[in-house]
């Protein structure tokens, strides 16, 4: 692996300070503190319902937080719509269920946001799209519709679609959880490649192999709190918190 390219810079990409979120009266996220440097690759793990999705969805304001501070790329998240749209166009997001636009071709899925948000000319947007579709190894599917592709292919298109906006940060919410086993690898390969190029990444995933290979930090969440964080080797070999130990023993198997 190209270790040199995977160097983390000192520049800060995301700052989260004392962030709290409630769904009604239900306290989902409690006093989250997290700083992410540019080029860092963070894997977030934790039991179902622990607030992993909510955390990364707060970063691009798909969910609103009620207390604390989130700063992305030097822009503080406020309820100002202009602000939110700016952050969203800098931060790419990949969902568990792909969320491709079924009424548009693969190519149109990839060019839509650059054309309408970035005001890129159509020709240029299509060239960029083909570039990234080639990168995720499905340029030949450009004129098909999402419904004609396999799950793994769809997820790779979703990654390409995000990359077409030239984001500086990528968020992944369980990108392989809805895939058949033989398709998980092709998506993980794409993500590893992205990591090697120095993309700042936050990944919610239970693929511990991926975490060990590319993450420089693993964060463990439980009940809306960050319970433990460490570099992958330490995290897996020497977990401190009881919950982490239990979780790892369940997920890594017997």
């Amino acid at each position, binding site marked *: 692996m190209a270790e040199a390219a995977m160097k983390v810079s000192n520049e800060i990409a995301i700052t989260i300070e004392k962030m709290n979120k409630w769904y009604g009266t239900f306290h989902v996220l409690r006093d989250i503190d997290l700083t992410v440097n540019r080029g860092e690759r963070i894997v977030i793990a934790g039991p179902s319902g622990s607030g992993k999705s909510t955390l990364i969805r707060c970063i691009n304001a798909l969910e609103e937080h009620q207390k604390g501070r989130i700063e992305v790329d030097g822009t503080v998240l406020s309820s100002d719509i202009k602000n939110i749209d700016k952050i*969203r166009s800098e931060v790419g997001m990949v969902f568990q269920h792909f*969320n491709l636009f079924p*009424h548009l071709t693969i190519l149109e899925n990839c060019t839509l946001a650059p054309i309408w948000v970035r005001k890129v000319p159509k020709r240029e947007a299509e060239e960029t799209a083909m570039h990234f579709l080639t990168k995720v190894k499905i340029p030949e599917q450009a004129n098909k519709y999402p419904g004609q592709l396999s799950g793994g292919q769809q997820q790779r298109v979703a990654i390409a679609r995000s990359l077409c906006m030239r984001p500086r940060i990528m968020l992944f919410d369980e990108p392989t959880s809805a895939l058949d086993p033989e398709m998980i690898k092709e998506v993980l390969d794409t993500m590893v490649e992205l990591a090697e190029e120095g993309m700042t990444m936050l990944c919610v995933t239970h693929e511990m192999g991926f975490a060990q290979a590319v993450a420089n930090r693993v964060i463990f969440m439980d009940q809306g709190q960050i319970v433990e964080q460490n570099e992958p080797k330490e995290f897996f070999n020497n977990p401190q918190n009881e919950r982490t130990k239990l979780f790892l023993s369940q997920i890594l198997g017997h």
Partner: protein
Amino acid sequence: MTEKASLAFVRDTMLPEQPPPASETGIIKWVRANLFPDVLNSILTIVALYLIIKIVVGAWPWFANGMWATSSLAECREILQGTTGACFSVLTERWNQLLFGFTYPNDQYWRPILAFVLLAFAAAPMLFAMFLPRKLLLFTALYPFIAFWLIWGGTVLTPLFALLGFVAAATVFPRVEKASGFASALGAAVVTAAIVWYVGGLIAGTTPNLIALEPVPSRDMGGFMLNFILGTVCVSLSLPLGILLALGRQSNMPIIKWICVVFIEFIRGVPLITLLFVANVVLAYFLPPGTNFDLILRVIIMITMFSSAYIAEVIRGGLAALPKGQYEAADSLGLDYAQAMRLIIMPQALKISIPGIVNVAVGLFKDTTLVSVISMFDLVGMIRGPILASTEWNGVYWELWGFAILLFFPVCYGISQYSQWLERQLATDHR
């Protein structure tokens, strides 16, 4: 023969292509599979055949002996001498009245006919958007003004200033929006249009004969033309209004949401015929005396409100059927609300809603005949009123109502077929 030799095989002459056995193709196979597959179906087929033949044989002399050139029902009866036969002469003699009503000036019929022909060219770029260049939509945008001028006549300045008002508003809107937001831009656009229309109205009023067609007042519109005008105008207005209402009902802003909910629920709770009576009588009380608020315009407003409420509910169903992930994907890519709705949400929601929207559109077109109860002379009004009440044609029911069916059915059937075709065109999910 050894084992090896029996396994190996090389073909040296190719088999010629043969037609399938006769019992497996063509009419014979179709008849057997569809009409006589078993005893019960065979009986049903025979009974159905018997009934069809009975009806055709019974109705045939009625058509065959039909009179086309008499001048009254009495004359038909005299010639037929008691044998069965239709009196189609009512159609030939009252042809123009059935199509245009009885007061539209005869020498001006070419105008609505031309407007009708042009409608095909205006509708095509919308209906077959995937095959035709987008530039043609320019004609679609101009068509309402052309059609208005052709049908109602008067000076060309009237539709020209109407168009100018829209153009001015459309130019002002984006400039103000960039500087000071959506709400003030909307206000500025409305004020601009109002000023252009007011000034234009004054100018057009002083020169009523500049490039003018003979003006035809609204009360002179009638016959199937009136149904067609009401149907086309109300469908084209109620679709965008329905979309806005459906979006408004979903809005986060409580005031907008409540206005839409109250409007939709109120309109759906009232029979259309009541609204038409309101349009006819009650609205006049609210207007300052002396103002002459066009009756057709009042009816168009009522029918449009009525069907837009239904369309809004149909589209709400389409919106609800979309997975939340589509909104989230659009948001996460940085699309703003308007872009997300226009590019992602609406195309999908409308596609799901096509059958429901078509239902409303077909219903609306047929409901335009309800205007006959507020003494407008649309096709039904013409038949029930001036024609059946006349001494010549009193009692000619089958021929007239059959003709009405013949006019309405192809339009409604056409709309339905088009929508099914469109659904197939737009199906991208399971190819």
